[in-house]
């Protein structure tokens, strides 16, 4: 066993972990998350067709500034080193910069995801001066046509303008984050060149059928061949960040760098704009709702005591995948991808590289109406029944 493992900051852990027993400790959960995503608002100036949180309109029940500060105080006590802030477009919140500063002043580093609309020259200058704040610009195509097809007209130009501002301000190593789709996967080298041009770091993540992604899944999810090409490309480019989101591809051979297991509720979770705590950013559905930060005991209580997270930290059954020789490599894939395509959680990933996913989807499609996502619209009052 090694005494040290040093993962890249975006990815949770490097592969030696798997062989040395830390993975089992991770599966059993930690006292506090390593990686926490906080969607500060559902308000957004874009309406991306694959938005995992179906964002657009602000939810009137959003956490207030005081409530957000209380959550940050709690994260500081739990020693959550940094948070990933997203949305919606988080910079739309009037108290966004205040909350970023508040977090940093309380020892909680911030990486925030933005479509770029909030990053002008002045903001970029401020950001470049703080080591504690990291920026992630979302784009989904290496050219305007490909990007705007998913993210809407003008969104590519907005993102590029923000990246120009960051480069001009001398902000080094900001992230360019791309969701891999059928239409942009062939552009990976272009994305990499773009990142190099801006002194940025490329981050590629997996497209999931969550939120509006459930509706665009058929059009956007990669083909089998594209998945294979991506796998080999990622093996050849270990410096590219992935948020460990492609572990289902590890069944193709050598494991990809990173934590080859689902971190939901174990080392990862999500706080949504109204304070609901979900197991991961891709399962905004009642079935994966662990509690709310407004409940007594706050976030710590949810993380440490919720029944849902306790269940997720139990050893998981390989289920239908038990007889497949590759389960150790892919761990059955992504819980969210299975759930929103109607596949049982102990079934194969819908994009199983051995082809088991399609058969599973065919059988569930006949048997049920499938799972809807909870956030089809902004609602006031009781949550809709999924």
């Amino acid at each position, binding site marked *: 066993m090694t*005494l040290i*493992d040093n993962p890249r900051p975006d990815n949770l852990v490097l592969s030696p972990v798997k062989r040395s027993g830390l993975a089992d400790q991770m599966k059993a959960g930690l006292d506090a998350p390593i990686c926490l995503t906080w969607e500060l608002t559902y308000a957004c100036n874009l309406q991306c067709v694959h938005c995992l949180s179906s964002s657009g309109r602000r939810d009137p029940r959003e956490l207030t500034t005081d409530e957000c500060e209380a959550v940050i105080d709690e994260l500081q006590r739990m020693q959550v080193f940094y948070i990933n802030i997203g949305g919606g477009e988080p910079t739309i919140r009037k108290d966004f910069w205040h909350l970023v500063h508040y977090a940093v002043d309380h020892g909680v580093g911030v990486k925030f995801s933005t479509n770029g609309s909030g990053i002008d020259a002045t903001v970029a200058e401020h950001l470049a001066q703080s*080591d*504690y704040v990291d920026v992630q610009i979302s784009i989904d195509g290496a050219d305007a046509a490909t990007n705007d097809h998913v993210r809407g007209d003008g969104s590519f130009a907005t993102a590029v303008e923000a990246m120009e501002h960051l480069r001009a301000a001398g902000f080094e190593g900001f992230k360019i984050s791309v969701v891999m789709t059928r239409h942009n996967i062939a552009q990976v080298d272009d994305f990499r060149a773009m990142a190099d041009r801006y002194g940025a770091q490329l981050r590629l993540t997996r497209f999931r059928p969550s939120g509006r992604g459930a509706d665009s899944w058929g059009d956007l999810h990669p083909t089998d061949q594209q998945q294979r090409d991506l796998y080999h490309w990622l093996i050849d480019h270990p410096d590219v960040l992935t948020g460990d989101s492609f572990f289902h591809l590890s069944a193709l051979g050598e494991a990809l760098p990173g934590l080859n297991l689902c971190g939901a509720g174990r080392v990862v979770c999500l706080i949504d704009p109204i304070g609901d705590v979900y197991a991961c950013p891709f399962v905004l559905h009642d079935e994966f709702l662990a509690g709310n930060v407004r409940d007594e005991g706050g976030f710590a209580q949810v993380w440490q005591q919720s029944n849902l997270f306790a269940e997720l930290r139990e050893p998981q059954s390989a289920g239908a995948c038990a007889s497949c020789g590759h389960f150790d490599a892919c761990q059955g894939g992504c819980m969210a991808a299975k759930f929103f395509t109607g596949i049982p959680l102990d079934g194969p990933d819908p994009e199983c590289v051995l082809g088991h996913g399609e058969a599973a989807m065919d059988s569930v499609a006949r048997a049920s109406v499938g799972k809807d996502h909870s956030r089809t619209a902004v609602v006031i009052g009781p949550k809709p029944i999924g």
Partner: protein
Amino acid sequence: MTFDSAVAYRLHERVALRPEPFGALAYHYGNRRLNFLRAPELVALVESLDSYDSVRDAFDAADIDPGRWPSFEKALASLAASDFLVAEGIDP
């Protein structure tokens, strides 16, 4: 710069340690890297470094089986390589 156990090291001022059952998580706010310290004895050793004039002295005072010293020294060298530990007298 190579790791030198004859000199004093200390934790970088922008590194935070979080206790965990396996040891500790270490996070560097400057380079945004995360490290897993995989033994409680290693955590204690790292925290004690700034009390000694050299890494060797820290080892002498620590309750660690000398047979394990090489692996611990390797761990410290790795921490120094990623800037989690800095040599005394070096301005981080």
